Each structure stands twice: as structure tokens, then as C-alpha cells.
């Protein structure tokens, strides 16, 4: 009977075979509140979960960064924690989202590295004590659809009101955020094309685009 390999060995093997879904392909857009029903209706027709209907979610997301004042460039590591407010015993979700790859301008979607994992509820205290700072938090409530391995979410974003999530929340805008994403191992660029085709079918209700966060930052 052979000794079990170390976890690090299996991780390196998985990295080598490129089977870890660590890239996120993403398109984003928005739709005004008064048209969201039309969009949901269209998505119900286009997506896989026709019979069961869309899955609803009600999540609280906390966005942390780990920073260290360094000589030269400051080091920053963004980390996000998401927890379901509507399912009590669901595990928390921890996520690292990297900078979007500059790459080819003609690429149909944003591509950024992503490490996504389930974790225990101690994660918030763990990150805080690790040295992370809470930058902002929000509540997202909406619906999730699937089409093959594409995930489509239509969510309303709320500001945190009271001390407890769910208490006195206030929507940040009169529209819904629409996201089309796929988590896949790197190099599977063909998925971008599928996403472009799908996004085309939602026009002109919603225009799903590559959003350049750096440019958004400059606009403010």
C-alpha cells in the first residue's frame, strides 16, 4: 500500500495538468428596474433551468485587502468573502480576484485570475487578524441562471444600512447588475466566443461589455 502523496504534490500535479479553474471570463452590464422583468423572462427562455426556474440568492459580500507598505510598489492582495443570508448552513465563500489581464484588445471578454473556495464561518475573523482591512461591503439579491457552463446573475446591490445585514438596506441605484461569467482553467479562450454569442442574444435589453475598472477609477 503506497503512502498518500502530500497535498502540495497533488496541487502541483493539478497545476501542471491545468485542471484548476483559476481564470474568470467575465462580461458585465446593467438593466433599469422597470425592464428587469423582461430580461428575466428572456433569460428563463434562453437558459438551462427552464423547468425549475431561476435560483434566487441573497448574499452579503465583504471586500478586504491585505496591504503592506513596501519600499517601491505597495503590495495589495484583494480578498472577498461572500455568505448566503437566505441559507443558514451554507459554507462561506472566499475568493481572490486578480487584476484583469491586459492581453488582446479583440478578446471578447475580461479575463482575470480567480481562486474560489468554500470555507468555514471563521473566515472573517481569520482575515481580520491576518492583517486584512475591510474596504467595503454590500448586499446582493437576485437570480442566477445557467447556460452550459456559463453563469448569469441578475442582482440588485444594496448599501449596508444598520449593523446587521438585512437591516435598513438601501439600493445603490435604480438598476440591476447583470453578469455573465465562466470559471475555467487557463487557456480555454474558446469560451469567450460562446459568451459573446450569448451576450448578443440579450441585446438591446442589456449590453454586456468588458468593463475596464482602471478607466472607471479615473472617471471618479
Amino acid at each position: 500500500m503506497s503512502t498518500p502523496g502530500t497535498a502540495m504534490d497533488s496541487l502541483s500535479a493539478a497545476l501542471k495538468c491545468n485542471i484548476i479553474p483559476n481564470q474568470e471570463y467575465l462580461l458585465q452590464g446593467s438593466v433599469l428596474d422597470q425592464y428587469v422583468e423582461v430580461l428575466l423572462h428572456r433569460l428563463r427562455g434562453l437558459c438551462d433551468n427552464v423547468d425549475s426556474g431561476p435560483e434566487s440568492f441573497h448574499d452579503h459580500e465583504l471586500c478586504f485587502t491585505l496591504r503592506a507598505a513596501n519600499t517601491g510598489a505597495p503590495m495589495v492582495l484583494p480578498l472577498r468573502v461572500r455568505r448566503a443570508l437566505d441559507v443558514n448552513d451554507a459554507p462561506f465563500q472566499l475568493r481572490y480576484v486578480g487584476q484583469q489581464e491586459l492581453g488582446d484588445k479583440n478578446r471578447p471578454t475580461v479575463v482575470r485570475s480567480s481562486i474560489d473556495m468554500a470555507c468555514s464561518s471563521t473566515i472573517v475573523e481569520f482575515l481580520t487578524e491576518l492583517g486584512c482591512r475591510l474596504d467595503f461591503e454590500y448586499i446582493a439579491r437576485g437570480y442566477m441562471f445557467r447556460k452550459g457552463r456559463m453563469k448569469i446573475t441578475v442582482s440588485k446591490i444594496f448599501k449596508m444600512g444598520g449593523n446587521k445585514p438585512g437591516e435598513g438596506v438601501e439600493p445603490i441605484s435604480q438598476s440591476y447588475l447583470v453578469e455573465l461569467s465562466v470559471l475555467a482553467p487557463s487557456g480555454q479562450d474558446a469560451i469567450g466566443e460562446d459568451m459573446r454569442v450569448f451576450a448578443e442574444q440579450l441585446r438591446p435589453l442589456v449590453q454586456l461589455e468588458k468593463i475596464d475598472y482602471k478607466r472607471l477609477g479615473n472617471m471618479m
Partner: protein
Amino acid sequence: MGVTILTQFPTENRTGPQTIDVLSKRIMALGAIQQGQFLVDCETYTSVQQLGPQRTVHVLHNSEQPATVFSLLETGTKTIPLATDGLFDLLMMKMSSFYTSKKQTKAESKGPRYEIGDFCVKLGTVTVSSNFKGILVEVEYRPCVVPAMCWDLLKEFLQGFLGLSGPTNPPAYLQNRMQEIYSPIDTIHQYLEHFTLFRKSPVEANVN
């Protein structure tokens, strides 16, 4: 998942493999059947100076829960446990400019795993950065999840095959948690306590 007790077994004048041999003969004589091998490992990371007061993250894996990574964060005043999916190791790599692993600290305990009735017994050879450090015996009593309710049974079982070297008191970590429901992270805490002691101990001469 039941209650697990981890205890060190003295090697005295024997080498590591000789000690494992003696113990496996004893447990087999009691009717245990070998069911594969096991491995628990631990890597320790410390925060870089720029991050302020020093903190330590211990990242452990246990072959009994192969899809989980356990982490224990020590701040100096408290210890925060965390259980995550396997990709946490990938995240630790991303954190390499904030938390660095000290070389020469990788600790592991590995060896044969036996089942005997309701008990699961593991005989671990402990190494710290490949240097032999000692023997850890893990016994799990699987039908029960409250330590206080099965401690006497576990003690009797342990003394049955470890003799006088068997523990007379529950492990320090469990002593004020005897009435709580036992979970896999509690086993991880016990391993870390022993690994920390082994890391401080001098290298044993009998490497083989």
C-alpha cells in the same frame, strides 16, 4: 467522525522503524486490520515585518479529510481556526510576499493506518524537514463525538497496547473542551501542539 486522542510514544533505545514495528505487531495481535497509510503535514508561515505585529499561520493537511485544508492563525493572544477547500494552498502562494514559510519547519507524521472494531489507529513517524523526531500514536473512537463520554474507554484502549506509555490524562488541548462536540479541526490542534514541541526538540541521533 469520532473523538481522536493523539499521544507521543517514546522510542527509548529503538529506532523509528523498530518502534513502529513493535506497535504494529501489538495492534495486529489484538485483531486490527491495516487499511492503507495516512499522512498529516504542517507548513508554517510568518508575517513579514511590514505587516506589523508578527502573526503565524500554520497550514495543515490530513489524509483523513483529503479535500480540506486546515489553517490555524496565531496572533499571540488567540488562535483562529479555518477550514477551506484545497485551493487555499494556491492562495497561500499568492500571499508569499506577506507571509513567508520558514524553511526547515515542514513537519509531517505518516505511517500505517489500522481499523479495529470501532477504533481507528494510526502509527505516525514524525519528521521535521526530513529529520526523524519521534512517534505519534493517534486513536479515534468513531461512534462517539463528545470527548467526556468516551475518554475512559479511549484511555483503557490506549493503555491496552501502549502499556505504561499510554496517556493518563486527556490531551491539554481537549481538557477544557471535554463536553463539546468533537470535529476534525480538534485533531489538527492536537497535531500542531505536538509538531511545535518536536520542532523545538533536538534532532534524534537514530535517524533510521
